[in-house]
């Protein structure tokens, strides 16, 4: 029935435009939607890349290109978030966890022909970390703090490089696998200087061919790739910022692969012409609650909010199943560190009302910061609106204030005190340490340079996190993180809402495509017929 009416409406719209169409078809009835040639993959990106210098970018959108042009010393094993060798064949960690020695792969060269060696590795990290490095001015390098624990990089011999850390830092290897750790060609940096970000040169499976602003970035296959030549000849990344237009392009055959499909559009891609691919990732979507002042200073009220929000309805309906309900601060994608025993707060409005009554707050007034978009924020306005409705149903009086992403960050990152009680937020990270360490510790309050904008403070959590960070044993770290998750869930500094499942759609001509939990887009083995 629904399908029938749907078709009817669409035909109505079709009819309304036919007159216009006739007029236009007289002009140019060129045949659009011509299929792209085999071996050429056209990827619909969500935005224009900012730069093709891995040290200079922060956006997943840019990573999608970079991961195909560059390699790091290590990389994530396919389908996991565990590291495996890449440009480094092997490594050793000293007893105290402060010295990492990497053995480099032999015979690898950059796309510009220069050789990859220990000097190149040192050049990369010195460029990012040392203010007196001659090419430090090719920055800024916003994510350099990923490696702030690195004290010195030493060339032992051409194929051996040693990293000296100032303290044990467990996420170090994982950070090396992150795009910020990708290795660029020193000679290309020397040649192009500040223009390097438009003339990238790495060791990856694809070489850079062309970047036309707001039109495309084109990569060609690197036949000499050390890990085997890619199947594709050419990859074209097309920035299409508007999700709706991206969907339309996909439907019309203008692109072969589309990432971040809007949930409402998923139903369009049922059927044989398209394949929808999904992959849960290390993402968590939550609401920061202001634990310092206002109604959410009470733990019971924070828990009430967790009970009041119908997370299942959000992920099933607003997000059309593109996310799972989150149980705690750590996403299940970090399988080794995830606490399996945690159950999400159930949707229980009655319980929420009881908790509010106990706390003596029948109708707390709440200001809610909502963003219009932003990295990993999914459908923030719709989510915010639905959450507002859920909270009001149990007695909260919620006022939404919407901000464009950058303004939003400008309001939220310095802390919610005196402005708001609640704010949307989402993080995608590469290590279970990152998010809680930066956003849940007492020492991570905004005034101390962290992102704990809700002023949550629990000494127990602080201690667990510090301990996990310096441990070199994954098992020990796992149990520390699991304990932390249980405490944080009970304390409810956030409303835990969703873990996003990244999705993508490919046309039937594309084979062997898979998404990675890291949110990277790896195209080396993809085939386009």
């Amino acid at each position, binding site marked *: 029935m*629904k399908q029938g*009416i*749907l078709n009817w*409406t*669409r035909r*109505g*719209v079709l009819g309304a435009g036919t007159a216009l169409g006739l007029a236009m078809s007289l002009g140019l009835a060129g045949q659009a939607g011509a299929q792209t040639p085999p071996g050429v993959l056209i990827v619909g990106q969500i935005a224009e890349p900012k730069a093709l210098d891995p040290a200079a970018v922060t956006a997943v959108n840019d990573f999608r290109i970079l991961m195909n042009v560059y390699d790091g010393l290590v990389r994530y094993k396919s389908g996991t978030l565990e590291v495996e060798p890449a440009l480094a064949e092997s490594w050793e960690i000293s007893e105290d966890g402060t010295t990492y020695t990497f053995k480099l792969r032999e015979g690898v060269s950059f796309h510009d022909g220069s050789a990859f060696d220990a000097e190149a590795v040192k050049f990369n990290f010195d460029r990012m970390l040392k203010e007196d490095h001659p090419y430090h001015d090719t920055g800024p390098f916003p994510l350099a703090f990923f490696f702030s624990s690195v004290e010195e990089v030493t060339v032992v011999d051409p194929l051996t490089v040693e990293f000296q850390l100032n303290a044990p830092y467990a996420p170090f290897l994982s950070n090396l696998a992150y795009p910020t750790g990708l290795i660029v060609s020193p000679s290309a940096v020397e040649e192009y200087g500040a223009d390097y970000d438009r003339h990238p040169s790495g060791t990856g499976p694809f070489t850079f061919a062309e970047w036309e602003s707001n039109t495309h970035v084109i990569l060609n296959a690197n036949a000499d790739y050390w890990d085997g030549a890619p199947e594709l000849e050419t990859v074209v990344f097309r920035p299409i910022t508007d*999700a*709706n237009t991206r*969907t*339309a392009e996909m*439907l019309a055959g203008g692109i072969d692969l589309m990432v971040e499909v*809007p949930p*409402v*559009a998923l*139903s*369009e891609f049922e059927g044989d012409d398209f394949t929808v691919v999904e992959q849960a990732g290390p993402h968590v979507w939550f609401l920061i609650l202001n634990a310092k002042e206002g109604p959410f200073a009470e733990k019971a009220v924070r828990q009430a909010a967790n009970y009041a929000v*119908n997370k299942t*309805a*959000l992920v*099933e*309906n*607003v997000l059309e199943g593109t996310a799972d309900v989150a149980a705690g601060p750590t996403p299940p994608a970090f399988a080794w560190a995830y606490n399996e025993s945690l159950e999400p707060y159930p949707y229980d409005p009655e319980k929420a009302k009881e908790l509010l009554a106990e706390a003596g707050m029948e109708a707390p007034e709440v200001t809610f910061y*909502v963003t*219009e978009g932003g990295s990993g924020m999914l*459908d923030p*306005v*719709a989510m*915010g*609106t*639905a959450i*507002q*409705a*859920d909270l009001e149903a149990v007695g909260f009086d919620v006022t*939404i*204030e*919407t*901000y*464009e992403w950058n*303004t939003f960050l400008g309001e939220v990152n310095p802390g919610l005190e005196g402005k708001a009680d609640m704010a949307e937020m989402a993080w995608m990270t590469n290590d279970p340490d990152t998010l809680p360490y930066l956003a849940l510790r007492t020492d991570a309050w905004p005034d101390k340079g962290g992102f704990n904008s809700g002023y949550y403070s629990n000494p127990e959590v602080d201690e667990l996190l510090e301990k996990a960070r310096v441990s070199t044993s994954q098992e020990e770290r796992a149990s520390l993180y699991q304990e932390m998750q249980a405490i944080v869930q009970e304390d409810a500094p956030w409303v835990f809402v969703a873990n996003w499942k990244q999705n993508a759609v490919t046309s039937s001509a594309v084979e062997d495509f898979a998404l990675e939990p890291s949110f990277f887009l790896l195209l080396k083995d993809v085939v386009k017929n």
Partner: protein
Amino acid sequence: MQFLSLLLRNRLAAAGGVVLSLVLLLALVTPLLPLANPDVTDTANRFLMPGEQGHWLGTDHLGRDLLARLLHGTRLSLAVGFAAAFFAAFFGAAIGIIAGYFGGRTDNLIMRGVDMLMAFPYILLALAIVAALGPGLTNALIAVAAVNVPFFARNIRGVTVGLAHKEFVDAARLAGLGHTRIILTEILPNVIPVIVIAMSTTIGWMILETAGLSFLGLGSQPPQADLGSMLGEARGALITNPHTSVVPGAMILVIVMSINLLGDGVRDALDPRLRSGALTRPMPATRVERKGTIPAEGEGGAVLNLRQLQTQFHVKNRIYKAVGGVDLKVAPGECLGVIGESGSGKSVTALSVMGLVASPPGVITGGAVYFQGQDLVGAPYERLRALRGDKVAYIFQDPLATLHPLYKVGDQLVEAIRVHHPVSRSEARARAVALLKQVRIPNAESRIDSYPHEMSGGMRQRVGIAMALANDPEVIIADEPTTALDVTVQAQILSLLDDLRRERGLAIIFITHDFGVVAQLCDRVAVMYAGRIVETGPTAAVLRAPAHPYTSRLIACVPELGGGRRRLEAIPGLPPAVDRLEPGCAFAPRCLKASAACREGDIALEGPGARAVRCIHPEAELEEGVA
């Protein structure tokens, strides 16, 4: 009141008004209607189709009732649109009046600022304002209003500058009134209609712009709906669920369209030019609606023969009988004068010949015009066109208005030739130079490249005559060709025309209100009054012994050449309105000799031989005139 009735007369505007009132009414009573709460989400029932589960228009992406959101959104969008228009008009008018009233440096400074703001693409200015103030419907309103202030300011300034130097303002100033007083009591009331017109034509635009900002997510904040944000939110589901986009989109369309219709109506009703009568364009040839039998040509010998010609103007439900059955004829080489006061129908008669009476409102309702024995009334347009300017040419009064201001006179002459004769451009140009020489224009070779505004009145009139002569016509109809000229030039032109008719044997119908001119040029004369001929005969005979009292009064108006200054006898009273002609003699109300019989029945145009008069108390017995 008059404004309202004018507005209602415009059916489209009325329709727009009705639709807009309905929308406004709906928006006003929205809170009272039994609607679902527009903000309550029901995500399980999202994207319901219209009609499903009691949702008349279906539900949106969060399962909210679209009808409820639509009505609440309409309420908000309308309020914002009107408010933005009001504020823009208020501040714009204030700035415009100040700049226009004080003038000088104040004006210069303000208008430079306005120029700067107008050099911005408005959307960027609006975006920047919203970015500076933060998102929100109020801020979007401020941005949209601010962006439109320069538009109003410039508009209102223009009007104010015109007013600031009017006598009543000077008078108020002399009376010692303060600036504020003058602006509020003298300037403002005169500017308000302009403000209202500008507002009515921009409200729709404001609603669109606000919707645009909301569409970009900079307007209303969730869950609040306005039409733009509804469209913006629905955009993500455009392909899967177009109805969620179509509903608010169609509503914007309906509102803006009805506002525009109404706005057009308001403009039409307030604009004085439009108020004085519909702004209509004349058709290529006068409309013909001949009733009754077509009179036969009768005796031949005339090149142009008008029989019982009737031309009327149909304006709304009034009928003006401008020409009420006129008989005229002119033979080759003959010059016929047609004389009468303005409004007597002489020009309309002349224009009717070639179907040049503006239509609407003109209609030829009866009679015939025989040119070389063939009736032109109701002839196909192409036939008329082929004769126009070729066989029958016109010379018009006031050549500044009748020559095209943007074409060189040479080009206008060349066109007149080439439209009827397939000659080359250079050949036509040579002929044009010859024509200009023929009408005694000095330096014809260089004058041919002048624009009309670069020539004197007499020169322009000569160009007009040259244009009429271009194709060596059989008949020239000259409609008061010398009225605007001074006496010496007039005399030159008259002698020029006289020479031409003698050399070329062309027939001239010369229309004038001046018996002196007729005396100089015309063989015969026909006197017209209220759309009819009241006396006709050889010029000399009529001049010597005018029979109709009106004719004698007209003759008395002429200062006799060489006779020194004589009392100019004006005719008391005004010609009658031709839409309310009383029976009997139309001149009776102004006639000293009028009797009761003059006001009854039709009086025939009778007389012996070439003379005839339409009068039962003629001034003189008619004798067969000799030219």
